[in-house]
């Protein structure tokens, strides 16, 4: 019996890797994408185009502009002479934001009044707009604090000390690159499994497989093995690149990460095989794969926090295996959290794996067309 499964596994690997093009398509893009996305996916603002419309002749505005010039977040692209220039500049996306300092700024400050400063931000991409606004706020808040201390001639009545745990410089790359491990592991595993049964159904060879003495669960093992090996293998490669190329600190232990990774890959294999055994053509399998991947990525919290979603969407995220593994991989990397923190992430993923794998096995025989 063992050699039957082995033979099937070998056949599955041959089907996947015999063709050079398909070998390339499975192995190369994930690594390439990790390198590109690792640099591309960041929420740190860098060199955002900033234009200044300064009507104030005094020193205060110059000091404030200096703060913006010194920040890595912004790049000063020009000074405006009149407010009619603001509209076209922003419309054409030549500047992301314009800082408008009022004529009376220094004068107001001299008599103890506030100086109004207006910031106009291109809201076309509201995420970027909020990022930029946040940077502006933090620059102005630092400026205010120092100015207030200077003018009071004493320390402020209370100090605020903010520290960030786990990611002291708040680099969003530390957050996103471990997320890419979860993302690419899912894509690779799904690519290997979601097409495998559908391909045989379309070619007619699946019927032949069904009339062999192989049990459905033996077929399941044979079909799942390439997904497991390729998925875990590719994920390991990606973890290596994350640690040694991107230098993301791996505080936790691999002994925590790997059990979770294996359960995660198994749950994706389950989903992939379920899609595949439900489809009768490759076209349908491809559609099914996308119908799973896109919502799974969005609902996982990869790009935006789950906590910011509306309640009913948050409920949906519990069906998404990536949600759980994403939490685990990020926390193992940055916080060094051990397995004891993850029971509530591991068991739902296990249930998803068991349910989808069983469904796939059942569908092998029962989805006839």
């Amino acid at each position, binding site marked *: 019996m063992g050699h039957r499964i082995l033979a099937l596994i070998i056949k599955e690997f041959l089907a996947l890797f015999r063709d050079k*093009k*398909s070998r390339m*398509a499975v192995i190369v893009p994930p690594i390439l*994408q990790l390198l*590109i996305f690792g640099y*591309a*996916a960041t*929420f*740190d603002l860098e*060199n955002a185009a900033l234009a200044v419309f300064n009507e104030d002749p005094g020193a205060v505005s110059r000091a*404030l502009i200096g703060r913006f010039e010194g920040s890595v977040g912004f790049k000063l692209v020009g000074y405006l002479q009149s407010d009619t220039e603001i509209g076209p500049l*922003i*419309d054409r*996306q030549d500047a992301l934001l314009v800082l408008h300092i009022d004529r009376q700024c220094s004068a107001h400050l001299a008599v*103890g009044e*506030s100086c*109004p400063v*207006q*910031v*106009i*931000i291109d*809201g076309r*991409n509201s*995420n*970027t*707009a*909020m990022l930029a*606004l946040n940077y*502006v*706020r933090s620059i102005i808040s630092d400026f*205010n604090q120092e100015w*207030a201390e200077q003018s009071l001639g004493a320390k402020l009545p*209370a*100090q605020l000390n*903010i520290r*960030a*745990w*786990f990611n002291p410089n708040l*680099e969003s790359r*530390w957050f996103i690159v471990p997320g890419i491990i979860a993302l690419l592991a899912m*894509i690779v595993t799904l*690519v290997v499994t*979601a*097409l495998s049964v559908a391909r045989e159904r379309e070619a007619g060879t699946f019927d032949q497989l069904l009339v062999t003495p192989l049990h459905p669960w033996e077929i399941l093992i044979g079909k799942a093995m390439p997904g497991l090996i390729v998925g875990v293998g590719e994920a390991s490669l990606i973890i290596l690149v994350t640690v040694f190329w991107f230098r993301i600190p791996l505080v936790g232990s691999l002994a925590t990460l790997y059990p979770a990774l294996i359960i995660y890959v198994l749950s994706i294999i389950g989903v992939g095989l379920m899609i595949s055994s439900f489809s009768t053509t*490759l*076209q349908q*399998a491809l*559609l099914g*794969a*996308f*119908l799973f991947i896109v919502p799974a*990525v969005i609902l996982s919290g990869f790009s*935006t*926090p789950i*906590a*910011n979603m*509306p309640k009913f969407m948050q409920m949906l995220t519990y069906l998404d295996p990536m949600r759980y593994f994403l*939490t685990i991989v990020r926390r193992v990397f940055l*916080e060094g*959290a051990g397995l004891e923190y993850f029971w509530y992430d591991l068991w739902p993923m296990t249930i998803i794996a068991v349910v989808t794998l069983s469904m796939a096995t059942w569908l092998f025989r029962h989805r006839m067309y």
Partner: protein
Amino acid sequence: MKPGSLLRITGMIRKECLQVIRDPSSIAIAFFLPLLLLLIFGYGVSLDAKNVPIALVVEQPGAQALSFSGGFYQSPYFAPVPMLSIQEAETALRQSKVDGIVWLRANFDREYLNKESPPISVIVNGVDANTARLVEGYVQGIWFGWLEQEAERAGKKLRSPIQLEQRIWFNPQVRSTLFLVPGVLAVIMTLIGALLTALVIAREWERGTMEALLVTRISVIELLLGKLIPYFILGMGGLSLSLFMAKFLFHVPLRGSFWLLLATSALFLLVALGMGLFISTIVRSQFVAALVALVSTFLPAFILSGFIFDIQSMPLVIQGVTHLIAARYYVSILQTLFLVGDVWGVILPNSAALLAMAVIFLGLVYRKTRKNLE
């Protein structure tokens, strides 16, 4: 046009249509996919943190300490959780039950009254750097507001020297739906294009029907038009549904011209279909074509198009790579047409890039197919 050309093209189109109708997954791609994706994206994605759970440790509830921590209860950004000790709060932070800690030590009030400038310690969980930075900003806001209020109570004047007034143009309430819906349209159209056509030529090769087609009098152009037109119509159908939803379900304003939107979308659809046909022509196997479509369409369109991640903030090399992604140009066009208007300075260069990509992809498909005819 050669004689009988129209007849051959319509014949080809009819054949493709029959195939589409017999395997309704193409129709599902064109209509069900946009429906599902728009619903999920339209409601699901926002970077704007609200009700962040934060642990409040007030070791001795003196008047000043309470007045400071009161600010957190009034803020819409925080959901404060009172805790008795810093140890308890740190455990909660480690278990991800809270995203931050505000810690006022026992001698806060005494030091405050003695003008010793006591520290307020704030710890944020930096794992999600973006949310952490937002939280920092909100805490600073509460802190400065409190200082002003206390100064006023003491009869002194502490005004924040710079009063920031923010104007977010085009989307003043910062509804993320307004920018997501146009962005997700680009992702949807990329997927539709690739999904519809990635397999259609490979399928003919795989089943041997390509050779049957080659011995007919049909020319390459006629063959490609026959493959392109039905899926183009299907894709435009999906687009119309998406636009309808954007307008009537999500109430995204369309400030530019509708016809310009339709024209640029048709152009993008051509690029997307061209890309699908290109994959199909190159690999000649449905399985490999599906593999390539899976790994090469969604993620690049999602991450490199400027839809979620700002392109200007990427390293220069990566910015260069984004120019290879058609969705990048389309996202730019869509966000401008929906939220700003007909800004030719944005529309023209991006449309030109799309046109170039359409010509390149379809030209390559044409060349590759002709070679095999010889």
